[in-house]
């Protein structure tokens, strides 16, 4: 055996990472600090003469919108749309992503269109959606649905492709057929991917809300921002942005909780 001389200093630097997470300052405290910092930056910008409203102004406007019930109505309307579109999108994306990952034919047929529609801006979908679905809730939910579906289907597909072959083989030799393998191996094994898809899809759903509410919305956060934009009413726009951001953040937290429950079997750092 050849002698190989390698630096053999004992590493004393960093403690093993699996422990690192558990001790020290809790994460929520950093979150809080981060929010405070962010608001500080915003305030700073608004003071240095940029044409954006300062936090108190936005707070005041928010108070008004809460007081007269507008905000509550808008939030309810938008939340309903986003939830419906998002849930439908995810519910369809998982089986479709599976089909695409599993069956070459499905992949060949669906992939060009999934890819194609992913690059089409939601704004361009709207006229078509109106023609096909009228101006009720359907086209609005459809546009959101499309956004979350497209983000999620790609992730699910990739997840299916990445499932450890050994596990699929193990299920097959235990007598599982495609359906069972899908439901009891592929879905759990690709949960981490699907969750990426859901989180990205959730973001897209909210981000598409403004476009969706261009279609004949009577209320909703996107609509409110849209009309505030015409009125150059920056405080209202900021109230809308913050409401959307906070709602999105909350829904994301729910997803994270779900993730922790669903993937607690994983060895993770």
């Amino acid at each position, binding site marked *: 055996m050849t002698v190989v001389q390698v630096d053999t200093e004992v590493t004393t630097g960093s403690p093993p990472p699996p422990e690192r997470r558990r001790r020290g300052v809790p994460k929520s405290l950093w979150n809080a600090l981060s929010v405070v910092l962010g608001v500080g930056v915003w305030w700073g910008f608004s003071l240095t003469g940029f*044409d954006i409203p300062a936090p108190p102004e936005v707070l005041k406007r928010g108070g008004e919108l809460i007081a007269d019930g507008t905000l509550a109505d808008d939030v309810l309307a938008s939340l309903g749309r986003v939830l419906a579109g998002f849930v439908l999108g995810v519910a369809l994306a998982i089986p479709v992503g599976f089909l695409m990952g599993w069956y070459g034919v499905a992949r060949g047929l669906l992939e060009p269109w999934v890819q194609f529609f992913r690059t089409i801006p939601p704004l361009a979908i*709207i*006229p*078509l959606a*109106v*023609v096909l679905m*009228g*101006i009720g809730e359907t086209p609005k939910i459809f546009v959101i649905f499309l956004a979350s579906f497209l983000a999620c289907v790609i992730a699910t597909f990739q997840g299916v492709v990445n499932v450890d072959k050994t596990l699929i083989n193990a299920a097959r030799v235990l007598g599982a057929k495609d359906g069972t393998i899908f439901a009891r191996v592929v879905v759990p094994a690709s949960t981490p991917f699907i969750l990426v898809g859901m989180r990205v899809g959730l973001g897209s759903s909210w981000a598409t809300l403004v476009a969706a509410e*261009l*279609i*004949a*919305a*009577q209320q909703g956060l996107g*609509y409110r921002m*849209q*009309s505030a*934009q*015409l*009125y*150059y009413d920056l405080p209202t726009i900021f109230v809308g942005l913050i409401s959307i951001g906070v709602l999105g953040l909350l829904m994301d937290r729910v997803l994270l909780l779900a993730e922790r429950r669903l993937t607690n079997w994983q060895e993770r750092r």
Partner: protein
Amino acid sequence: ACGSSDDNESSGGTTKVNFGYIADFNGASLLAVADDQKLWEKHGIEVSTKVFTNGPLQITAINAGDLDFGYIGPGAVWLPASGKAKIVALNSLGNADRVIAQPGITDLAQLKGKKVGVPEGTSGDMILTLALEKAGLSATDIQRVPMDPATIVSAFASGQIDAAGIWYPLLNNIKQKKPDLVELAKNEDFADSVSFPTAFVAGNEAVSGKADTVTKVVQVLREAMDFRAANHDKAVELTAGLLKQPADAVKADAANSKMLDSKTLDGYTADGTVDKWLKGMGDYFVGAKKLPDNPDPSTYYLGSVFTGAASK
């Protein structure tokens, strides 16, 4: 604010100017003409034109210092009125707006309870509001459905809405699908109370700080206006070239506005007609709650700069 003496621009060299516009005949024709006729060079200005899709974004850019001049349609006139910018010249009177309805609806009064599509904050919105007022209906008497202009085309053509406030040239596309649609109201119906002016704006600072540049630009615009008035077809052709649109479409578009020339505008400025237009717009905007009150047009329309440019 005009005529300030702290003008430190050299009168000899060229001045750089960023000019915003919207890609339709109203918005682009003067720039096309000025470019073709070398009017900028003549007045020692080096222009760089930037195309935008709406007025408010240009005013945002002006206030951020990225743009010196811009073009706005009637729907955005409340922005200068609320002090965000100054109007340096009027351009045309919009004549393209209509309230249309599906066949069978013959009267504005029949809109009660109907679904009416409207692109909020545009001249389509304005004409609808005026029309309803005239018919004695309140905003709550109809089902107001806010949508963007292109959506109105498809929604109306496919029968999803009963009526709409919309304008040419979009209306041409609807007409192809629904040749028998009904026009319930047009701009001229309200000529005595409100006109729909389009205008050129400049930033508040530019007007006070670079009066000389403003004057030169207004001179360019004046000469271009007169050329446009005298050579309508040529102007259409030049604009179509700039916009890369078929000349027919631009021609149809041009037919829907009343182009103004500098003489007429000088007259209207002097006799208060312009103030009357703007006052009328202001009333509308106050009614639409976009403005808290209706300021004196002289605070945001620089009539003396416009007319003053003629003599320089």
